[in-house]
């Protein structure tokens, strides 16, 4: 056997493998190492497991994901997702391997090949039809054809249709997510008892994980999980193959007519197919060549067809019109695995079925035959084959369907399925195509059968007890007879010659046995036969129980080995750590010894030198640390300086603005003060003039009274006009100053408010400055208020002056009138005179 680089090396954690599986591995040159038998450490490519619910332990122990070690479960995993998460790739019951198809599935799995059509993916299949799906909601007609075809081929139409509907809706949901592209090409066909339905489509963004994430071991309400769950459980075998080179996914569902496969195990396979660099297995010893060459899938048919089995002929495309039909010639009968314990002429056969306490994995037929006179002349034939073709098989495996009849909707006896309870001749039952209660009734049937088996088993047990007691009695009688014989022999030995004894015996033998004697002998033989049969049965049972125990022991051993391995790894790690610690300690001790004085002078000086260096280094480090802290502080200060600089610049700007404003207000105030002083001087001048005027007026009145002069009133008028002009000027001045004061007030208020807003966020230094500015502003406002008061006073004075002026005016007018009167009087006096 030549081992190639790609030859799988399998670690067996599943215990005893079935004969078929062992044969398969042997024929393909695949090395299977039993962990309990051989303690080898190899780079495993696959691990065989069985009866496991949680695969985390296996995954962790062997690093299945990291090392791409694929798990093969020979039983249905308890947690499917967990199985997949730990690189689970194949679920296949050993019962599949009883026929050629199981072998083919294994080949396909190990070689990781695939194709888009059914004949490419499963070369053994004969394609019966194909169609395309462009609109997933409009598939009725073609689906009808598919379902009809499945029914015609003896498959459960319900399963096929349920599968198709659900997987299509699952794919449609993936299409909505942009994972799947349309069209979907569908093809379907058969191979012997297997019916296949394949779909393939473009899936650029789809990964195996998209499917595994939706895998559940129970039905859920999440639409995708629900759809996939129903699809998976509607098929007997589910094959998901991804073709990365062309970004396509091929999903194949297979249905097997064998009821056993359906009930015991639904298989599934997840493959990441490769084309040119496909996994090659070495040529098997006996069967056909097993090498995938460049020619493609056609050549696969050769190696998947073991010698003597059905042949697949694939004709290249476009050669003839029938080029697309994969023809399958009739299959040769499979070799039965027969173990003959002993053989003799068969005069009488006792056939019985030996059944285990659990579900039967192998139907065993035990044929017991022997000659009447020969006590040990039994022939025991043990057969593990499921095939029911052979005539010597007296026990039929139940549930072998053989749907007949073209009438799809014909509910008459045409469409029938064999009952499968043992009677193959007459017990035909009409099974309609749309038998909705299909799976549940099957389950009931199975339940019934199991119950029957249990009762039979109980009966057998009771029978065994009675027979053993009978046997005991028989043995006792036999022993008694032996003893009698011995006694007789003794008597004969003592009394007669050996020749005489012979004579007596011969005489007794030649004597015709009495009726009672012959009856007893017959009974004895019967009993002995029965005893042997029961012994065989019990040994079979023992074997079965032994197997069960062994299986359990193996599981336990597996767990133990796992625990042991983990313990070993931990202990190794601990040991390593201990070693490290020990090494460290020894080093420390050595160093201590050297330190204490055991070392040489040179070493001590060296140490001293090193210490000195260390001290220097630490000093240097401290120095650098200090430097770093200084630098950091400087950096911080620089940073803060930069920040404060900005703020200062802002404040400076504000300050300048305020200063200019203050300067302006000061100037304004000085201007106003100047004006006020000017006004005051004017007022003083006016007052003086007023005083002068009043004096002049008094003098004028006096002179008028005295001398009745005429030049005075004109001068007074002139004076009054001048005063009026001055008053008007003063009034305008006042108005102007008022408006200016108001403007200044507004400006000041604005400046103060701006100052307050800006200063709110500034630091203490700027606050001081602002306070200073505020104080100056306050002073200015006080000045302004004062000047305003002064102005008010001046206003009052001007009003007084105005009033005085008007009074003076009135007095002037009166004086004028009086003067006129006086002037008229002398004139009239003169006239009269």
């Amino acid at each position: 056997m030549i081992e190639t680089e790609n030859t799988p090396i399998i670690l067996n954690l599943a215990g005893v493998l079935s004969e078929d599986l062992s044969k398969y591995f042997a024929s393909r040159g695949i090395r299977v190492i039993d962990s309990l038998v051989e303690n080898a450490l190899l780079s495993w490519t696959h691990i065989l497991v069985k009866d496991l619910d949680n695969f985390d332990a296996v995954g962790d122990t062997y690093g299945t994901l990291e090392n791409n070690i694929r798990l093969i479960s020979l039983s249905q995993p308890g947690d499917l997702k967990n199985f997949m998460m730990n690189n689970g790739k194949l679920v296949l019951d050993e019962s599949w391997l009883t026929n050629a198809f199981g072998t083919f599935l294994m080949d396909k799995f190990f070689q990781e090949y695939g194709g888009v059509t059914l004949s490419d993916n499963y070369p053994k299949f004969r394609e019966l039809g194909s169609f395309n799906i462009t609109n997933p909601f409009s598939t009725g007609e073609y689906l009808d054809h598919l379902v009809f075809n499945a029914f015609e081929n003896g498959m459960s139409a319900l399963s096929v249709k349920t599968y198709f509907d659900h997987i299509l809706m699952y794919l449609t949901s993936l299409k909505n997510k942009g994972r799947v592209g349309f069209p979907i090409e569908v093809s379907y066909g058969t191979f012997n008892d297997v019916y296949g339905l394949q779909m393939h489509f473009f899936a650029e963004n789809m990964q195996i994980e998209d499917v595994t994430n939706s895998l559940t071991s129970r039905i859920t309400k999440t639409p995708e999980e629900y759809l996939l769950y129903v699809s998976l459980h509607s098929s007997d075998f589910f094959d998901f193959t991804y073709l990365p080179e062309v970004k396509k996914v091929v999903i194949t569902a297979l249905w097997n007519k064998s009821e056993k496969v359906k009930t015991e195990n639904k298989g599934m396979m997840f493959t990441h197919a490769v084309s040119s660099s496909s996994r090659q297995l070495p040529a098997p010893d006996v069967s056909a060549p097993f090498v995938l060459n460049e020619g493609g899938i056609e050549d696969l048919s050769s190696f998947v067809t073991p010698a003597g089995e059905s042949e697949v002929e694939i004709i290249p495309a476009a050669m003839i019109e029938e080029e697309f039909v994969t023809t399958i010639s009739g299959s040769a009968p499979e070799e039965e695995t027969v173990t003959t314990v002993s053989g003799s002429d068969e005069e009488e056969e006792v056939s019985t079925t030996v059944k285990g306490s659990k579900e039967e994995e192998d139907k065993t037929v035990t044929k017991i035959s022997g000659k009447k006179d020969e006590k040990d002349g039994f022939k025991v034939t043990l057969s593990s084959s499921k095939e029911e073709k052979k005539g010597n098989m007296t026990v039929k495996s139940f549930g072998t369907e053989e749907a007949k009849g073209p009438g799809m909707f014909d509910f008459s006896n045409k469409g029938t399925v064999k009952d499968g309870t043992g009677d193959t001749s007459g017990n035909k039952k009409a099974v309609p195509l749309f038998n909705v209660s299909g799976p549940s009734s099957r389950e009931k049937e199975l339940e019934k059968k199991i119950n029957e088996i249990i009762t039979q088993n109980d009966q057998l047990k009771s029978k065994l007890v009675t027979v053993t007691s009978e046997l005991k009695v028989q043995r006792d009688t036999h022993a008694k007879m032996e003893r009698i014989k011995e006694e007789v022999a003794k008597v004969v030995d003592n009394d007669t010659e050996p020749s005489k004894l012979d004579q007596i015996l011969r005489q007794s033998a030649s004597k015709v046995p009495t009726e009672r004697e012959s009856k007893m002998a017959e009974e004895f033989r019967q009993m002995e036969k029965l005893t042997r049969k029961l012994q065989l049965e019990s040994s079979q049972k023992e074997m079965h129980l032994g197997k069960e125990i062994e299986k359990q022991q193996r599981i336990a051993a597996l767990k133990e080995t796992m625990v042991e391995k983990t313990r070993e790894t931990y202990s190794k790690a601990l040991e390593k750590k201990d070693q490290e610690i020990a090494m460290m300690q020894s080093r420390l001790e050595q160093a201590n010894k050297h330190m204490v004085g055991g070392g040489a002078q040179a070493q001590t000086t060296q140490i001293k030198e090193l210490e000195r260096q260390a001290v220097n280094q630490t000093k240097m480090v401290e120095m650098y640390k200090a430097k770093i802290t200084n630098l950091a502080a400087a950096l911080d200060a620089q940073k803060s300086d930069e920040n404060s600089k900005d703020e200062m610049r802002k404040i400076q700007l504000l300050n300048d603005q305020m200063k200019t404003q203050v300067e302006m207000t000061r100037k304004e105030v000085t201007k106003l003060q100047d004006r006020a002083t000017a006004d005051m001087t004017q007022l003083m001048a006016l007052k003086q003039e007023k005083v002068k005027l009043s004096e002049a007026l008094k003098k004028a009145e006096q002179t008028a009274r005295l001398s009745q002069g005429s030049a005075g009133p004109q001068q007074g008028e002139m004076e009054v006009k001048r005063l009026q002009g001055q008053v008007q000027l003063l009034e305008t001045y006042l108005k102007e100053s008022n408006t200016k004061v108001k403007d200044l007030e507004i400006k000041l208020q604005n400046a103060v408010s701006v100052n307050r807003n800006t200063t709110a966020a500034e630091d203490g230094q700027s606050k001081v400055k602002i306070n200073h500015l505020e104080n100056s502003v306050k002073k200015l406002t006080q000045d302004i208020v004062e000047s305003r008061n002064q102005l008010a006073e001046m206003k009052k004075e001007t009003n007084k002056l105005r009033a005085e002026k008007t009074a003076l005016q009135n007095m002037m007018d009166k004086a004028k009138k009086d003067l006129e009167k006086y002037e008229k009087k002398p004139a009239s006096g003169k006239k009269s005179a």
Partner: protein
Amino acid sequence: MIKLPVKDLAKRKIADGHVYLSTSEGRKFYLLKPGMLLDEDFIKKHAQLNTVFDFEPVAVPEVIENFSKLFKELRYLQFERDLKSQSLKILGEFHDFHSRDGHFLSFAQACFDAFNLIPHESLKKMHSQDTQLFRKSFYSAAFSVAIALSNDFYHFTMLRDFYNISLMLDFGLCETNYSYYVAQACNQENKLPGSGRYWLEQEKATKQEIDVFLGHPKKSYDYLKKTKFLAFPELAEAVLYQHELSNGNGFPKGIPRSYVSGWEAVIMIADSLVEISDDFPFESRVIDHLMHFQSSKLKELPVGKVHFKLKETLKYFDSLKETNFG
């Protein structure tokens, strides 16, 4: 042969017959072959001269109308049964294909009117690069519709995608380095699949020319990926399969036959139509050609099943012809 003024010719997008120009001495110059794009410049030039052409019609207006009507009906059908029967109706129009000239051109014209979504600039670019290449694409695209219909791809949007993909299948050849050698390599490839590259190397073609030849599926694919008019963008992948071979030695991917799907085979068979376009006059024997010329060639292509279905469908109509028309 009829006289056709330039203004009447300008109404057409594609030449539906042979167009000649006669000199005053009575000499005829062959100007346009059926299936050629009517170039704007060509029309403008002759409009100024007010040219009257000699025209030999090939396509049949009634047939074009009939196909157009059937396509229009197909567009609005929803149910599988209706779609199926309509597709059979369309293919049924082929049943007397052998006896009538111009039938396939009429079909191609109706397809162009019903399905074409390619911008005029792209068509013009291809036409100006190589008129033969354009004609081939024009017929291949129509052929893809017939193949798709016979293989149960009968949804209007999908047929439209097949048409446009086939039309742009060789758009990647429209490169500056496209030369006589590249065109000849294409012919060689069609005669004997897988021989194009070898021929180029033997003829000592430049690296650029070899690159244009080997890289054109990818470039066509990139062009189609950029466009937004495909209802099923994933179908554009089929462009990458146009030169794949059964033994996995094709290009650009070199995938084996078992990886080619039906929808990709539709495009591949449609592409193989190129060979008939060099003969003159060829339109009358298109289907005869289809039935026979490919048999040797298809051995190399991973398209068997689709071709078989096409043949079966057309044979079915042949048998109808024998029954109904003796």
